[in-house]
């Protein structure tokens, strides 16, 4: 059996210890129709474990000044903690309880099924979160990252306690874990932490179901699409524009990161200059390549005034088309390269940051030190490499636009923006 991946970053600046225990295989592996299963299972594991019910577990952790949180991404479920180092042993045991002996009580299962739709309500109340939720769904139909990690009212209703227990038993095995520790901890304490966790969890191999293959992914669909999420009384349009992109870690990653910075990753970037600085249309405008284990999205974001939402979309699509056709200039590449190389020390300044980056790289199945080593790759990429990568990977012809706004006001201008024929949906229907 392979041991779990363990990362330790020590720092004695404060008496705090952070840990991240990532269980590989996240919400992207939810069965179709049962979206939300991974999140529901992980949240439920935190609601009572070992000898403690939910109230006792909360009380014990709080009394130690500690936190034990659940995170669910498309690629992993994580149990993350923060503890004063003098209480670390006690917190380890509580984390091990959650991993190895969750109670999965019927009461908490039913309560969580009642609670989760209210988290959906909060997303629907938040225009930015709502735009992201819709963009994820419509960007690449059939892509596992397009399914909601939270679930829907319909999918949540299909989650049974037997599914929950089976999922946890299958996924929480030593070989499927990545364990990160940072802060006021030495090697001996780290080893004790790992041993105490591993002696409690199943020693089985990594389950085949934790691995999602790229063969399942759909390709980008040609043709622009516009989804207008209708919400009353808006003064702005929350906009997302993008398409499926490459996998973080592919050979084009360094070149495309420079291309991303030129287009929308800095204040000096083209989008920020054209949309905010020159026209004042939005407080901010930028783009990002979502970093994940599988190919994810390239996404442009902004919140334009409702009176300029149409022109803002039209201009953005023009900028994207021009960028894909011509790419960045040599000067732009030099500038972005300098920015990206110079910014790396800020991403690895603290022990916690270094640990989190290392854990993420491991979850993405990248070589150890991949992200921290990107500055070397940036220095070797030429302007021609960047233009070539941008040309291959940016797809203005396949751009999907999501606008959360008031349809009656925004529709006429948005339909003239060249974003495709508008499909209007209610803000609370998904």
């Amino acid at each position, binding site marked *: 059996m392979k041991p779990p991946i363990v990362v330790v970053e020590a720092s004695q600046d404060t008496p705090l210890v952070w840990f991240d225990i990532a269980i590989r295989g996240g919400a992207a592996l939810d069965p179709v129709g049962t979206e939300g299963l991974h999140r529901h299972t992980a949240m439920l594991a935190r609601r009572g474990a070992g000898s403690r019910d939910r109230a006792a577990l909360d009380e014990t952790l709080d009394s130690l000044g500690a936190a034990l949180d659940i995170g669910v991404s498309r690629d992993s479920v994580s149990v993350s903690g923060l503890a004063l180092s003098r209480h670390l042993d006690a917190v380890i045991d509580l984390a091990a309880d959650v991993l190895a002996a969750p109670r999965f009580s019927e009461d908490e299962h039913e309560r969580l099924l009642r609670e989760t739709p209210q988290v959906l309500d909060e997303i629907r109340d938040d225009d930015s979160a709502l735009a992201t939720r819709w963009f994820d769904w419509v960007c690449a139909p059939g892509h596992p990252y397009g399914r909601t990690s939270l679930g829907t009212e319909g999918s949540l209703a299909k989650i049974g306690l037997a599914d929950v227990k089976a999922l946890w038993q299958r996924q929480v095995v030593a070989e499927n874990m990545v364990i990160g520790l940072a802060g006021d901890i030495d090697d001996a304490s780290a080893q004790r932490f790992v041993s105490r966790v591993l002696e409690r969890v199943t020693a089985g191999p990594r389950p085949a179901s934790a691995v999602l293959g790229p063969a399942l992914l759909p390709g980008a669909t040609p043709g622009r699409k516009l989804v207008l999420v209708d*919400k009353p009384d808006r003064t702005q349009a929350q906009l997302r524009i993008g398409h499926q992109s490459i996998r973080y870690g592919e050979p084009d990653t360094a070149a495309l990161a420079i291309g991303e910075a030129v287009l929308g990753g800095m204040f000096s970037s083209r989008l920020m200059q054209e949309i905010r600085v020159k026209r004042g249309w939005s407080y901010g405008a930028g783009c990002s390549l979502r970093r994940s284990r599988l190919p994810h999205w390239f996404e442009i974001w902004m919140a334009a005034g409702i009176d300029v939402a149409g022109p803002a979309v039209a201009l953005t699509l023009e900028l994207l088309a021009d960028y894909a056709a011509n790419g960045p200039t040599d000067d732009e590449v030099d500038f972005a390269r300098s920015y990206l190389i110079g910014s790396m*020390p800020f991403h690895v300044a603290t022990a916690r940051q270094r640990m989190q980056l290392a854990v993420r790289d491991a979850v993405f199945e990248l070589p150890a030190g991949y992200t921290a080593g990107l500055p070397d790759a940036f220095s070797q990429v030429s302007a021609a490499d960047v233009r070539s990568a941008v040309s291959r990977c940016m797809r203005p012809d396949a751009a999907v636009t999501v606008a959360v706004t008031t349809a009656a006001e925004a529709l006429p201008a948005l339909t003239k923006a060249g974003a495709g024929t508008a499909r209007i949906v209610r803000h609370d229907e998904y």
Partner: protein
Amino acid sequence: MTSSWTLEAEARIGRGGALVRRHRLSNGLGLISLVDRSSPIVALQTWFRVGSRHEKPGATGMAHLFEHLMFGQTEALPPGEFDRLVERTGGESNAATWVDWTYYRLSLPARDLPLGVRLEAERMQHLVLETEPVESERDVVTNERRERVEDDVDGWLDEQLMAQAFTVHPYRWPTIGWMEDIRALALPDIRSFYRQWYAPNNATLVVVGDFEEGSLLDLVASHYGGIVQQPLPAPSELVEPEQARERTVRAPKPIATDRVLAGYKVPGQDHADWAVLEIVATLLAGCPSARLHRHLVIEREVASSVDAQLTPFRDPSLLRLAVTAARGHSADSVLALIDEQLAQMAAHPPQRAEVEKAKALAETDFWSQLVDVDGKAEAFGHYETALGDFRKVTAIAERLAAVTVEDVARCVRAYLRPERRTVVIAEPEGDSDEDEDEDEDDAA
């Protein structure tokens, strides 16, 4: 050149007892420094003692507008050059404005500290304020306001709470400003505001990171030493009158369930009771086992979330409770349960273990703010600017550690009374046939 500085204060802060010093230049500029060589980076922050409290009615949003304008053209830097110079290093710049202060943040590779000091000194004295850049940033700010207030129910709740809770004090207007004021801010007034407040004797530089202190003192003196101090306006003496009755505002919004934001009048951050109230906030809704979280969210399921925050303002402000009602439950039923819990807490002091729990969480929070160079600089800058002394970062931690069960019961009885409360409620559209409904207020 270091002789032009006066060493005013020093303290050992943090686990290793690192030495934090405050020097002052002869023109009044403060400099707080802490050497931290854990990474080859530096946090350079410039804190100005000017926030929305220093504005005038009709010209709200002025302080925040500068948060935007200060990245614009200066006499030596063409438009956009400030950001380009910073980004070429890999560094980042940002700024924040609140009621008591405005600060400008540069995160730079250590070798680029001289560039940062030069840029900050340049924009403190040579900002170019002309019609075109001001109008461009005015449009950006109106869009920022739309995003954060007009189209954001939480932003609206926050703005309404302060507007209703304060009748006299400048805390009553939003830091971003009222929309009609943002649109009306006049260029002569903008220039006047800059001359008045952006002066060395109204500023503190906070530098944390990998540098040599003597070189820093020389560097700052060389760039700032020639800047002339300005006469500063007398601080506002406006005192908010005691609140005698509960105030309530309701409005329909496109949301799924009721949202409640309640604010109880409490003392400013420098008051001895502030630390006690921080513990109270934690006990109410600051952790998973907190009373209101357990009672409203878990046991009764009348709320989907509850949060408690104590605003760290210089003058008396609010302990805020934010609640999102669960489906099928009203804001009024949630408020009734909150009242029950507060009455119980006032009548029956918490157990010692419960207070010790909140103190343990406060200890974790204290250390968490001192993890990186930016966090350390922000902590020192806030306490120096809002409360007059960076050393209060540890003084408040000591106060938190000394809170007793009796303190908690006393402060709940003294401050968390309905008549000291202002409540803002957002209700789903269609639930009520009224538009905005403001309850009759007590006379100021």
